[in-house]
């Protein structure tokens, strides 16, 4: 048991780094994922992940596999797409799903064009699919900073964010926070996806954001427990994924996301608001 669960982390520094990095990511991106899900923006996360890819790839092509330029590139691409799509949906009749799709497709095509012009590389696979087992100190620091910023921002804007989700028109009638809080939230999404791509790749980082959130939805009807549970599910997935990856020589990123996927599928069936419970309990009723 010790050999299976503890030894890999005790014996190898790269496993410890991977563990710290992915746990910090879970702490940071799972709450963001819960809000994304509750705002029916789950696919927005996916679109944003695609939008970030060209920026990160550009940084990679210009400066090689270095964390700072790739992160900055990803941030710029993500912010441009988020602001552009958000602004179009706020100030025109077009809804956010359509404007988001338009902007991320433009961004993605631009990125693919740039990559093909500059020639591809095996290392680019790292951008796409991540290297959680090769997180260096710079990357860990970055993830730590992103986690701190995210938790601090969520704590400050919590009430506005909840009000904006629950009753946006009310928030607009009592304060001017409505539009700013929406953009702050989108910025957090971008930040967490950028933080995640070091570890999981641009395409899979959204998985650690959305799957634990989607799974937690089946267990509770309260926001705070839902977020705590999402973080827990995310953390368990990270540990499980890393161990599976270590023992069976599988790529770590997909192993983490698939672990979360298994928990999600189990939650659909067994959750307190899942299939079994709602079916079984449906015919039993109280007198009032």
């Amino acid at each position, binding site marked *: 048991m010790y050999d299976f669960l503890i030894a890999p982390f005790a014996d190898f520094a790269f496993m410890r780094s991977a563990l710290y990095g992915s746990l910090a990511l879970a702490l940071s991106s799972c709450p963001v994922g819960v809000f994304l899900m*509750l705002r029916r923006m789950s696919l927005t996360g996916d679109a944003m992940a695609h939008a970030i890819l060209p920026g990160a790839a550009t940084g990679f092509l210009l400066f090689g596999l270095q964390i700072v330029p790739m992160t900055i590139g990803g941030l710029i691409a993500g912010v441009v797409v988020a602001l552009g799509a958000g602004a179009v949906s706020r100030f025109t009749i077009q809804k956010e799903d359509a404007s988001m799709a338009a902007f991320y497709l433009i961004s993605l095509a631009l990125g693919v064009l740039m990559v093909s012009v500059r020639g591809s590389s095996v290392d680019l696979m790292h951008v796409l699919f991540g290297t959680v087992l090769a997180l260096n100190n710079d990357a860990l620091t970055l993830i730590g900073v992103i986690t701190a910023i995210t938790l601090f921002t969520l704590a*400050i*804007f919590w*009430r*506005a964010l*909840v*009000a904006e*989700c*629950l*009753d*946006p*028109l*009310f*928030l*607009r*009638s*009592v*304060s001017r*926070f409505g539009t700013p809080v929406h953009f702050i939230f989108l910025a957090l999404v971008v930040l967490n996806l950028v933080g995640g791509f070091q570890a999981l790749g641009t395409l899979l980082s959204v998985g650690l954001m959305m799957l634990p959130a989607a799974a937690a939805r089946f267990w*509770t*009807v*309260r*926001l705070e427990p*839902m977020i705590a549970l999402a973080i827990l599910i995310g953390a368990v997935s990270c540990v499980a994924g890393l161990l599976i990856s270590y023992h069976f020589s599988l790529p770590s990123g997909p192993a983490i996301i698939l672990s979360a996927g298994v928990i999600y599928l189990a939650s659909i069936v067994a959750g307190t608001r899942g299939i079994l419970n709602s079916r079984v309990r449906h015919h039993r009723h109280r007198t009032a």
Partner: protein
Amino acid sequence: MTEASLTFRDLTLGYFSHPAVHHLNGSVARGSLTAIVGPNGSGKSTLMKGIVGVLEPMSGEVQHNDGARVAYLPQQSEIDRSFPARVVDLVSLGLWPKRGLLGRFTAEDRASVSKALMAVGMEGFEGRPIDTLSGGQLQRALFARVLVQDADLILLDEPFNAVDAKTVGDLIALIKRWHGESRTVMVVVHDLDLVRTHFPETLLLARQPVAWGETRETLRPENLLKARRFNEAWSDDAPWCEAPETAAHAHPHRHDGRDHHDHDHHDHHHHDGPAEHLHAGSGKA
């Protein structure tokens, strides 16, 4: 003349250059209880949005008392009923004007939320998820939120829709309580019997005010007939509406009885002073 809670100065509100409320002038007295009536599409909800400030005027302005708190209950609320919130969370949103983004909720705040729920007959519902409420229960909860907001000016847009008779009675009692507390209350209502029984003042709207004043006077048959003849439709080739007194930098504004606008939102010229567009009954003491 009593002190005004709200003053409209040549207020025009609308969408895509078509006015929904056209050149409204007048004021709402502080502590008054006004029903807003009119056919569908006559600008009632638009007027409320303009007063709250979620819709920018095309021209003219709404002047509020300094520091007056406004509570607004929209007709089509944008509440996400699937959001994992309890009744108490929803009602506590009403504490926003008092506590803002970061202020802590005190024991007193929590007591005011419980008292409000009790006042709308929903004690014991605190912990219920909002997606389990019926339409009428949700409306009561929203009235509780208005109570918690403790506002000077209360705007209710068709609050009696899809609500049973008992609930209507309870809600009317609350409105009268607010009126008794010298708050200014404006309510969009369709049931004219309700208006005649409970509302001292009425604004009859059909894009422009048809009549505005004492309820019995406003709801006279000839006024109602005039409102009923109101043409709800826009037409895209309607002539521009010109403001005669500001010829130098006028918003084009021609009247042909159907009143269409092309106000430029980025144009910062305003009609200064009272415009020459006083329509029948648009002024009010």
